């Protein structure tokens, strides 16, 4: 514990504030803090506060009615479903990609890593569009799908696909640097001691990456539940059927049901806050185990 506190002091802002060479003059400090916190308040804090204030503007009953509305309920279910499919898929992918990239040397590794990041640099609208081009009525598989009476676009599968696309890199990009940094020595030690590949993965690798994994899952889930643009393109906006929560917010807003729109939005904002809280918790936990390991 003592080592922990010492490392905190070494790391923290006191290191800068207590040394004359790195201490800013009072006037500078006041100015920087005013600008920083003012900017923070207007651009980050205010939008958050407004969501809840607007949601409760017409009283708690209106708020509650908006949430128990059958269309809202179905939107919540669809959002949960999409995340429940997209997150595990990308979890398996993330672990698999990180294993291949971090544990082996092969040509084209850097290129592969860049390709994995690709969905982050593609506009969500284009993420929706590409599936329309593949599965839509005029798309590659459109005629075949129509013959077999399968709907992908303007239906749930399209929403799931778009969600998988936009959350694709989250877990992989969390795990790749983590596993690269941990190296393969522990895995090699396990193999030398007679462990099989699966035993090595479950007993040695997984416990070592669990915090990074959880971190990635939290971020992946937040994006999966909150995605708007991509899902909007492939959804078709059928109330009670192909509406996710963010799409439901849009519909209510465009119908001038502002209080109801903000009520549903407030659920998503709560999700965002929960995400941030969990994320901080994971950072704190993993950071703590990290510094404990560094201690001796």
């Amino acid at each position, binding site marked *: 514990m003592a080592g922990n506190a010492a490392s905190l002091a070494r790391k923290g802002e006191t290191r800068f504030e207590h040394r004359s060479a790195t201490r800013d003059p009072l006037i500078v400090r006041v100015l920087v803090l005013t600008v920083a916190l003012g900017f923070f308040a207007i651009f980050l804090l205010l939008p958050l506060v407004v969501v809840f204030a607007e949601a409760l503007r017409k009283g708690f009953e209106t708020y509650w009615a908006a949430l128990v509305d059958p269309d809202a309920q179905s939107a919540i279910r669809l959002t949960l479903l999409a995340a429940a499919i997209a997150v595990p898929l990308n979890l398996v992918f993330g672990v698999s990609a990180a294993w291949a990239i971090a544990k082996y040397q092969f040509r084209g590794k850097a290129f592969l890593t860049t390709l994995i990041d690709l969905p982050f640099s593609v506009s969500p609208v284009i993420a929706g569009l590409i599936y329309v081009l593949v599965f839509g009525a005029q798309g590659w598989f459109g005629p075949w799908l129509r013959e077999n009476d399968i709907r992908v676009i303007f239906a749930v599968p399209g929403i799931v696909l778009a969600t998988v696309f936009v959350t694709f890199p989250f877990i992989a990009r969390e795990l790749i640097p983590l596993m690269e940094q941990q190296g393969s020595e522990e895995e090699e030690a*396990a193999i030398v001691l007679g462990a099989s590949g699966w035993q090595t993965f479950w007993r040695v690798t997984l416990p070592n990456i669990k915090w990074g994994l959880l971190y990635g899952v939290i971020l992946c889930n937040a994006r999966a539940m909150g995605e708007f643009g991509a899902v909007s393109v492939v959804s078709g906006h059928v109330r009670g059927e192909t509406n996710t929560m963010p799409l439901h917010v849009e519909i209510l807003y465009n119908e001038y049901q502002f209080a109801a729109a903000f009520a549903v939005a407030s659920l998503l904002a709560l999700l965002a806050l929960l995400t941030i809280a969990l994320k901080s918790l994971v950072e704190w936990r993993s950071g703590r185990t990290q510094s404990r390991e560094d201690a*001796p």
Partner: protein
Amino acid sequence: MSIRVEGIFKQFGTFTALDDVTLDFPKGELVALLGPSGCGKTTLLRIIAGLETADRGRILFDGADASDRHVRERQVGFVFQHYALFRHMSVFENVAFGLRVKPRARRPSEAEIRRKVMELLDLVQLAWLADRSPAQLSGGQRQRIALARALAVEPQVLLLDEPFGALDAKVRKELRRWLRQLHDDLHITSIFVTHDQEEALELADRVVLMNRGQVEQLGSPREVYAEPASEFVFGFLGSANRIEGEVRNGRLAVPGTDIALPVAADGARQVTAYIRPHELAIARGEGDGIPATVRRVLELGPLARVEFVTSAGQGYEAEIPRSELAGLALQPGEAVRLVPRTLRLFPRDAA
């Protein structure tokens, strides 16, 4: 178990790590692979373990070809340079790991595992740390736990990669003695990699000197130190004065002068001469020897070290007993003669 490596060749990209290495490691011996970094010693160790595959060549365990045997089946104990202790497991679980991952049919009972692990922890004198996590151990303790973990699977061979590399000087010396004792008790064929000549000479039964992917010399510590087979070995083991000169009429011509050769040499050729500091005598007055001035006298321990410089700017170093130094009463700036009692000549290309 005896080990033989035969014609091992390994390349990483265009870099040749091992160039046709053939070596025998007799049963029960403790052998050091010694050389500068990048000489291929760690690669050779990893190939013996099965962690790396050679491009060409064979590995024989007790005469049987083990080249294609998976590392899991080679029954080697490997101690990693940074120990590779499983950071999320206790010390006990680390040592027990090799027993727990055995196929069910061959896995010992829980009680048997406990007995075995505690026995090993006793052996490395760290039973009291069984419940700690690796992060709570000192470097030397981690090293011993890594060794206990490797021994748990009853290996036929023990391989150690820079076993003392990450430790400070004092712990290093203690552990060295302890490892030697452990080896004398267990008599497992052991190979360790090191770049520290003192460590290799003090600890090993036999030393393999490697340079640029090739074996320079193989022999007992005394042999390799006293009879270096190559210029590289002479330069790498212990300190040495190195002079470039020419053999002419049984004398050695060096810049500024020529001296009588204490060893037989005929013909005329370009050579590099190596003289150990303790083989350099200091004389005064007229006579044979290399004229030099005293630059610095260092009196530390039983041997004193004296540094000289010639008029040509070449530096020399001599080691003499303190008692002898007192008799000489050398003063910095004083002119003396340096007379090699013995030296070793290696031919030099007249490039």
